[in-house]
């Protein structure tokens, strides 16, 4: 398997209204994937739902792009698609499902190269964690790296490390981690608190959704010396 990393990642976080999550599973899991392909929207690399954290109740997914211009054109085509408009109207069924959607553009972080090879296959049986770190300065990278290393030493797998590009303060780093289970995640939080000074950190506990997409993980390609290439094509398996 060859893995590549894209220049940008689009993280879409939907804060759901109560009771409407099942509708979204039907829509995003079954109905939308063929339309994404038809309109040139990147195939999502992972789907999650969450009932714990600042965005909860949350439905989220992440997709790679090599060009924001391509991204804009593809979504424009998607939203104009008659099939999508019909499905959306039917799925709404007269009531709102999403409270607030956030569309965030991230870049692969330099730190990600330290964990290359990790997260090559998304573990669908454990629990995932999305962390938003607010670093006080560039020097904060070392501190973040040390924290991630502690998590890895305690059983976490790094799915992705990102820098904010659009939609979040630029000193925000986003870490996607996979844990064997919730107990391991909680135990490590204690170890992290003991080993590191307090951090400006928000965490969202996420459960991966197995929609049957071919899974590729999010990690940088292994044969790229820089750890993150410029224009290196879509994620491949």
């Amino acid at each position, binding site marked *: 398997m060859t893995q590549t990393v894209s220049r940008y990642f689009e993280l879409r976080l939907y804060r759901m209204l109560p009771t409407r999550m099942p509708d979204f599973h039907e829509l995003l899991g079954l109905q939308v994937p063929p339309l994404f392909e038809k309109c040139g929207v990147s195939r999502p690399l992972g789907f999650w739902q969450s009932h714990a954290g600042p965005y909860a109740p949350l439905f989220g997914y992440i997709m790679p792009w090599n060009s924001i*211009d391509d991204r804009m054109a593809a979504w424009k085509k998607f939203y104009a698609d008659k099939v999508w408009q019909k499905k959306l109207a039917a799925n709404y069924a007269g009531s709102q499902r*999403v409270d607030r959607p*956030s*569309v*965030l553009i991230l870049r692969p972080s330099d730190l990600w190269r330290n964990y290359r090879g990790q997260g090559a296959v998304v573990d669908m049986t454990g629990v995932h964690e999305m962390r938003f770190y607010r670093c006080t300065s560039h020097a904060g990278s070392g501190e973040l790296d040390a924290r991630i290393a502690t998590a890895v030493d305690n059983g976490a797998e790094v799915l992705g490390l990102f820098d904010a*590009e659009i*939609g979040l303060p630029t*000193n925000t780093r986003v870490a996607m981690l996979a844990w064997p289970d919730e107990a391991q995640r909680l135990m490590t939080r204690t170890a992290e608190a003991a080993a590191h000074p307090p951090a400006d950190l928000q965490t969202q506990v996420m459960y991966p959704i197995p929609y049957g997409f071919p899974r590729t993980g999010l990690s940088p390609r292994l044969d790229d010396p820089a750890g993150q290439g410029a224009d290196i094509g879509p994620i491949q398996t």
Partner: protein
Amino acid sequence: MAFSRVRAIIGPHALGVWQPDAGSGIAPYVSLSAWHDFERRETVHQALREDREWIDSSASLTSCEHWIVAPSSGAPEQIGPTRTDEIYEFRIQEVANGSQAAAGQSFWYVISREIKRTGGRIIGQFDIVLGPNRPVFVTILAWSDYTALHSGWQYLDRSSECAAQRDSEMAELGRSYFDRPAQWLMRSMVK
């Protein structure tokens, strides 16, 4: 000064640069740039990230936030000119989900007309395309001074057109299209 380096590099893409006088979580400055495509934006921002003068002068900046906005429904594409002797009012409002287009129309056809009657200027009205907690409506207004701003909003509070629009929204949704705004009062730094 960091922002002057931003202007030097972003150059013609910069439509305006403002410094806040008042508002919550006051930022050092706000800038608005127009781009034909994202590749050009990326090229310019990469030049900024690698610029030694920018790196040195921006050391005190803890962070900044980039949002991608587009002119909202019914709004003119080009923003109005800015002057250094005016007060600029930035308003960022979450909009009822599903009502983004209606909110844009409401602002342009009702609220903005009333603002103009009071002597205020509409510099721009935008929807956030890429960013958090969408849909979000952004407006930039210009007032000759604080007194004009104050009396302008007093006028809008008494406006029968605005009241009728609000009643119509209440009848349709049970709420206004717009949430309470986050507001900043700013001065233009571009002469």
